[in-house]
């Protein structure tokens, strides 16, 4: 009859009570009272993404009624200075524009700040006291969400200090404690395993939310709806009908002011190992038994398990790397990668990566999955294109007509939507056949604006829904798949770098890997 709302029991599990007024009223509001602690609250991510997301969650009445926010970072701020800073972040970067004063004032009184040194346990103990005060003053409960928005090098230190200050889940049985870990989760397989070892000392897997903001995008979530809420696609979603799958994450931007970070990362680590591999899993996985987070993540893991990592000898047959040179993007001349700030003039870091992978299972055996990602390419586009097999026998069309293969494109950004290309007869006496496109666009299809990924993901973590977060086994397996490429690329310097002009479709060699890349 009515929805339920959780309260906490001693084991951290929710007990339920019935609110009869809830029947028939849909609400997106998060039920559990909670406090969110942002480590690295003076950083760029907090400023541009996280604080605006929190404000918009409040604006849309999604945050729990009893909520608190604590910033924790090195930059010295008083509480009032930090509140002003947060307001400035919202005013500058929020999708909803400047703050509404009365709402802001209400939120601001629930915000405080701790100027902290991550090496000093006493600062974490202060955090513990502050959390206790929030519980008393704002009825925020003993539910805590720790958000690691710091450089990855600090993650292990913060996690260890939480334990030292008795803020780890083992010390508090009354509520829940969860931790959101920003990407990258490690820089290679060994470092990812080392980080995981530190995480495991304090949090169990169900308490860890590894964020990949790509998974929070509406269209990414719609991949599963497209596949499993319709009957017409799934029967042909196999090697019997699909010729190839292309996944593209192309950017027109260069490395901007992230040269120092990017030098140690490259396209393979920065995009392919996480974002693109997650898209591949959603496209290729088997139908999960339920919409439960682990049921879905089990199926994603199975996809990664079925991908055979290339042997060192196969690396150059199965992949292409590139680095952008100077060129023209959007009518403007832009510099080459090697002349970007904080980039070595003889850098061997790839700004473009393309791979051909195979998934060795009954559904996909023999179907190539082409993945590519790069910076300073001709167009900003993220999409998944599924090319179906050619028709077996030609009945229609004049000789000059080309009967194109059907292509289903899931457009992730920009212009989120889905399009299908098929062939139709051109009106007239002749029997001409021409391909046409049927488009669905999210913006016009539903007339609503999708919320930015961070809003969805933060809310999901507060609700305890881990569906859109990456589980450790999948992270580890994704690293295992790309490690041979990383190792070979690192050990063999590419003397053709830079090998594509900014504003182009990428290196020529990519066309040898896949002559059928969709033009950018």
């Amino acid at each position: 009859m009515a929805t339920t709302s959780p309260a906490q029991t001693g084991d951290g599990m929710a007990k339920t009570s019935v609110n009869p007024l809830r029947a028939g009223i849909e609400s997106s509001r998060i039920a559990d009272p909670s406090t969110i602690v942002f480590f690295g609250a003076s950083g760029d991510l907090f400023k541009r993404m996280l604080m605006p997301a929190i404000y918009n969650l409040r604006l849309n009445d999604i945050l729990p009624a009893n909520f608190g926010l604590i910033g924790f970072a090195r930059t010295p701020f008083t509480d009032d200075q930090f509140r002003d800073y947060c307001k400035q972040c919202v005013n500058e970067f929020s999708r909803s524009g400047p703050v509404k004063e009365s709402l802001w004032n209400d939120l601001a009184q629930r915000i405080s700040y701790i100027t902290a040194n991550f090496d000093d346990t006493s600062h974490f103990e202060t955090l513990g006291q502050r959390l206790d005060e929030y519980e008393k003053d704002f009825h925020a409960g003993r539910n805590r969400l720790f958000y690691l928005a710091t450089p990855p090098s600090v993650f292990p230190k913060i996690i260890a200090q939480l334990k030292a200050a008795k803020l780890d889940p083992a010390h508090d049985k009354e509520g829940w404690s969860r931790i959101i870990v920003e990407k990258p989760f490690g820089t290679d397989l060994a470092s990812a395993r080392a980080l995981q070892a530190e995480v495991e000392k304090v949090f169990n897997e169900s308490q860890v939310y590894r964020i990949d903001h790509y998974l929070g995008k509406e269209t990414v979530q719609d991949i599963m709806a497209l596949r499993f809420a319709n009957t017409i696609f799934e029967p042909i979603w196999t090697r019997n009908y699909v010729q190839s799958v292309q996944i593209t994450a192309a950017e027109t931007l260069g490395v901007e002011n992230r040269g120092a970070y990017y030098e140690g990362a490259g396209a393979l680590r920065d995009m392919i190992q996480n974002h693109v591999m997650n898209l591949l899993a959603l496209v290729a996985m088997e139908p999960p038994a339920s919409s439960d987070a682990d049921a879905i993540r089990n199926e994603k893991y199975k996809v990664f398990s079925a991908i055979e990592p290339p042997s060192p000898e196969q690396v150059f047959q199965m992949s292409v790397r590139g680095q952008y040179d100077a060129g023209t993007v959007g009518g403007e001349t832009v510099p080459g990668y090697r002349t970007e700030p904080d980039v070595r003039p003889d850098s061997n870091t790839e700004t473009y990566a393309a791979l051909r992978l195979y998934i060795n299972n009954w559904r996909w055996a023999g179907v190539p999955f082409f993945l590519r990602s790069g910076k300073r390419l001709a167009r900003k586009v993220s999409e998944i294109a599924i090319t179906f097999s050619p028709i077996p026998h030609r009945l229609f069309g004049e000789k000059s007509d080309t009967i194109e293969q059907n292509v289903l494109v899931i457009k992730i950004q920009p212009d989120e939507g889905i399009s299908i290309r098929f062939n139709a007869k051109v009106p007239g006496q002749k029997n001409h056949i021409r391909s046409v496109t049927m488009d669905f666009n999210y913006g016009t299809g539903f007339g609503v604006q999708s919320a930015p990924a961070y809003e969805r993901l933060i809310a999901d973590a507060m609700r305890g829904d881990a569906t859109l977060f990456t589980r450790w086994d999948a992270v580890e397996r994704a690293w295992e798949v790309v490690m041979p490429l990383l190792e070979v690329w690192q050990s063999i310097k590419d003397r053709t770098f830079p090998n594509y002009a900014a504003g182009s479709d990428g290196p020529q060699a990519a066309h040898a890997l896949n002559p059928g890349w969709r033009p950018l």
Partner: protein
Amino acid sequence: MDDLLTALAQDRRDRGGVCTTSQNVIAFVENDEALLAWMARSGESFGEAHGFRIILLDASHGDEARAVRTQCKECGDTTLTSLEHIQIGVRQLDAVQLRSIAHDLLVPNVRTVLLWAGTRLRDERFTALCELAQRIVLFSSAGAAALQSLQELCAMNDTPLAERIRDLAYMRLLPWQDLTAQFFDEPDLAEELPSITRVEIASGSEPEAYYLAAWLAGRLGWQPCAHLAFCNPRGDRVRIDFHKQGRPRRVSGVALHTSGGCRFGVTVDPDADDVICLTVTGCKARPPRCVPLHDVDIVSLVERAIFEPDDGGVYLETLAHVRRLLELRA
């Protein structure tokens, strides 16, 4: 009607649009020029997202008032017809003729919605048009005789028609219901629900107040025992106080009082009418909070009325309590 449909097809061809009607909307408007103009304008908003054929039946004018138009939008390589609008004067038509004309103008095999803005619900034309529609949307508090409309609506509660009806006057109370309910999502505060002894509702007109009181009664198991009074399951009396205050058709405050001295208040912020202040004072006081009032615009409300699924019988239960209250009033 062939001439209208031919004109519509020609207009669509002229714009190069492919027909994509997913919904027929029959809109009946009577004695309300402003509403008529609004319906004509709002069609574009509805059609933009969903692909509607709107058949606007203008009961204030004769059949000299005829117009057709289409609206197209570019979508990739395709031009889609997002709206087909037919307007026709029907003042001289009786119920049977009206039904026949509306039927002829419908796209076959497509879901049909009736938007009724007639003067009365007790009207043969309403009954006739209802036969064509899978959903019926009306706004009981829109007219001058709002309470009478509500009474007529209540009278339909025992008929099969009731399940297909959505009243915008009730639907626009959703934010108030949600904000009232949210106090009791907290288990400690939910314990206070059986102790409510008094409800204050401030609104600019009566139907909204009746709806809110009846909704609370339905959800909490109260039975009407006098006009503006219920008895809770323990037999204790719950008093309802209406305060006529603020704009017509708008609620501006709800307060629930308990026997233990708790007061749960939901009121519009005096400084911003799209912000709500939530207070719990007395026995289980909580820090005051402000939240946005998601008071949806009328186009979005109509959209919801057309598309949203049933609420599990809560509305019908509420309507039954409104009916009883109004009977006790008489």
